[in-house]
């Protein structure tokens, strides 16, 4: 793909990030645990608790 005249510094940054070793890592299993706990299981438990009046 042609660079379409990107700024040289932007071009350098893109070239660096195209190398997978230079990218930030995605969610780890622990992150998924927290996401599911705080975003799914926790809300479900809270809703159950709140409904018990």
């Amino acid at each position: 793909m042609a660079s379409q005249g990107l700024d040289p510094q932007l071009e350098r940054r893109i070239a660096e990030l195209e190398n997978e070793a230079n990218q930030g890592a995605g969610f780890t299993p622990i992150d998924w645990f927290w996401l599911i706990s705080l975003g799914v299981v926790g809300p479900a438990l809270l809703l159950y608790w709140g409904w018990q009046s």
Partner: protein
Amino acid sequence: MSNGTQGVEQSGWPLTTHDRHWTQWQLFVVLLVAASATWCYVIGEYVGYYLNLKMGFAAMTAGAMIGMLLVALAVVPVATRYGVDSIAAATPQFGSRGWIFTVFLQYASIVGWNSLLLIFFGKSVAQLLTILGVTTADSAGIVVRLSTALACVAVFLVLLRGATGLERVAKVLFFFIVGIGAWMAWLLLTQQADAIAAAKPAYASGSLQWDYVTGVEIGIVSLLSWWPYIGAMVRESPNAHTATLPAMLGMGLPVPLLSLVGLAAILALEVSDPSAWMVQLGGTTYGIIALMFVIAANLGTTFAGVYATGIGLRQVPGLSKLPWSVIILMGLVPVFAVGMFIPDLFFSNFGTFLAFIGVFFAPLCAIQIVDYFFLRGQRINIRGVYERGEGSPYYYWGGFNPAAIIGMAAGFGTYLYLLNPVSYASHTPYEYVTASLPTALVGGLVYLVVTLLVVKPAGKGDYP
């Protein structure tokens, strides 16, 4: 533009891992300060119209955490992998021209919210000065305008230093906001426990299930509004792991916790604004503390909002090379103008516009989640995000992706059918499933189907 990290923080360019130094704690502090503002009392007030304290807290918190999960899944993985903000992260789905829609959403939403927050800020300053005997109630209009102008100047000066300025101010505001917020909640819950227990929600519908689901819906839709903010901040962290807990606990949890104050106050005292009820509870001194809290919280959120808007505007062709000071002014001048010329008109009417804008974030998040996790194998073409011309990876058809347009329209239509965001008139199955969750489901599903049936077979969108 300098070549250093400082200059890059103020650009819309991707941050490499060398530029991203924020720790979990730094990100947590910034996100918490961004999330804590007067709107929390308004959210609590709305929930308190329908539910008692226990049910309201449960529904609002559950909804907030569900909403935060959607935003986190949509933005955090892309923003932290490639160091980009929410707008750049949406380019693969919306196209090399279609992303302008997300810029509009971000700009309108954040400028609108900032205007409301700074008018709140100005009103709080006017009240504070009146209580202290410095000014009279008659001069409140002038004080509101002057305070808004001064706040705009303060935001401008702090943000001249980009993300670094934001992070440094957040550190100062953090302890103040957390400390006073917790104290106010404790004060209200201990001194007004009987009144809270005996209170009846003012607008309860008669169907407890409808009221409960509405509490959840208010929580979800409130947190979905973080979409425009979060990308510019989480991109400062080196990976998704560093951003996960700060996003969920720093940006997600403070909103329902502070909203609890508004919820308890509206039930017990029939007013959610702490600068009003704190005077009732503890006299002038308490009122002054509450007003200082409102001032600090709203200012902190405005810093984050203007910074996020600036990074988003950087993506617009022609704006990428403007001086950072000009970019900040583009986010601040409309706020300043509203605060100067039409504060009351804006206050009365802009809520309707913001309610409709908020409806778009559910399908937007779902489209990003479906695209990144299910269609692209958790990778995007980072070069394609910055290449705009014909033949570029995300050019689709004329720069627009029909899957995203149809998905957004289907989601918007679904929401409006299930719940009118202004009048709260609803249709079944809203009372079982909320409006935002089916909206996200329909938006994401339509995007998936159109992509699989039309976009991918046509060889568009750089899909693997």
